[in-house]
């Protein structure tokens, strides 16, 4: 495949923290249908790389191209990707339904109540959808946060620790989401520890080996 049709093409990325490069000369080419696992020890730069790809943080050098177009700081292709962080990014005083409503609106998607219900249902999170997020467990919050993926239509998912705090059933549901997204022409870059794997052809980028 040529460079032009790669969904995401990171070239020669370097990110410096405290005068030490966290990663240096990093290359990564993500095509549609691919799931990429970022692995490496704590502090290896997995979250940093995801945030750089999402356009939240700026790399010190290197280029990032999306579908053959170079991403610039002032014109990041935000309608092509979504980043979900390790924390839940939810408002603790609102219910899951209210949270999903504002999050999808902010991302430019119009989420009908029925769609929100269905998204929560598919991650087995519907039975606590009327409680304030404050009263939910970390795993329950994670399920609510991941429901955003079904409401906001983005080709590239950047997921930081999507399996964190989830029980075995939750992990299987997220794996299913990732598999289906890749099968439908999307791509996923995610970080994880341990043995969790998406079932689709998985590419792995090991960080922190320099």
């Amino acid at each position: 495949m040529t460079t032009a049709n790669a969904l995401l093409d990171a070239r020669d990325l370097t990110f410096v923290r405290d005068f030490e490069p966290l990663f240096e000369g990093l290359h990564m080419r993500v095509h549609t249908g691919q799931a990429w696992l970022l692995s490496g020890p704590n502090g290896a730069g997995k979250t940093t790389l995801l945030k750089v790809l999402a356009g939240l943080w700026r790399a010190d050098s290197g280029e990032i191209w999306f579908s053959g177009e170079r991403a610039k700081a002032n014109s990041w292709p935000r309608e092509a990707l979504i980043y979900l962080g390790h924390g839940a990014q939810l408002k603790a005083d609102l219910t899951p339904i209210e949270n999903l409503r504002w999050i999808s609106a902010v991302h430019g998607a119009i989420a009908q109540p029925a769609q929100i219900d269905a998204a929560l249902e598919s991650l087995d999170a519907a039975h606590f959808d009327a409680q304030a997020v404050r009263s939910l467990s970390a795993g329950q919050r994670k399920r609510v946060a991941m429901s955003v993926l079904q409401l906001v239509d983005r080709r590239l998912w950047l997921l930081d620790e999507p399996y964190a705090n989830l029980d075995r059933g939750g992990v299987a549901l997220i794996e299913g989401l990732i598999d289906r997204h890749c099968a439908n022409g999307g791509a996923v870059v995610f970080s994880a520890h341990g043995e969790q794997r998406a079932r689709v052809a998985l590419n792995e980028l090991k960080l922190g080996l320099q």
Partner: protein
Amino acid sequence: MSVLRASVELLRRDLQLAFRSRMDALQPVLFFVLLAVLVPFGVGPEPLRLQTIAPGMLMVGTLLSTLLSLDALFVRDADDLSLDHLLLAPVPLAALTFSKIVAHWLTSAVPCLLAYPLLATLFNLSDGAWSAGFLALLLATPTLSAIGAIGAALTVSVARGGTLIALLVLPLYVPALIFGASAIESAQANLAISAQIYFLSALALLSLSLSPLVCAVALRLNAR
């Protein structure tokens, strides 16, 4: 259309949040009222003396109560990481920061305006100055919210940035303070207040139109 919808939903969310924790949201205005109650103990309760200091005290009280609520503007969003969603949204960030400023005005200035009759009574404002005082607060508070938002956005990644916000923002509040107090003083002396009102309106329009852009840049810079 999606920009408008995103802004409206964000405004709705912030109002919902303020309503859920309404005791927190009412603290700044309670502070303002307490301040007005305490002043006569310090300077003496003579009506004439209270009338003399009323213009300045009303404006300073508004300034301080606004400061108390500024940390809620972006810091809470940064703390629970929900700010990430705003930074990653495909809509212009300035549209979202404008929503945040409007929400701040509605939740911090409107309670002060509602408490105004009580405050005016505590300072023994004459009938002629009553409406001028209300107008001054009404027109000065959008400026306070808009300029305060810049301070809040600049200090969003500073741990315990509350004091820093005050140091950054209070000097910028001087024009609103001067014209607001001057409007009430002129009304007390039965003079025309249109000049001050025009200035306050101009300040409000200028700060409301520029502040969302500055906030957006500051938030992006602070993301790293």
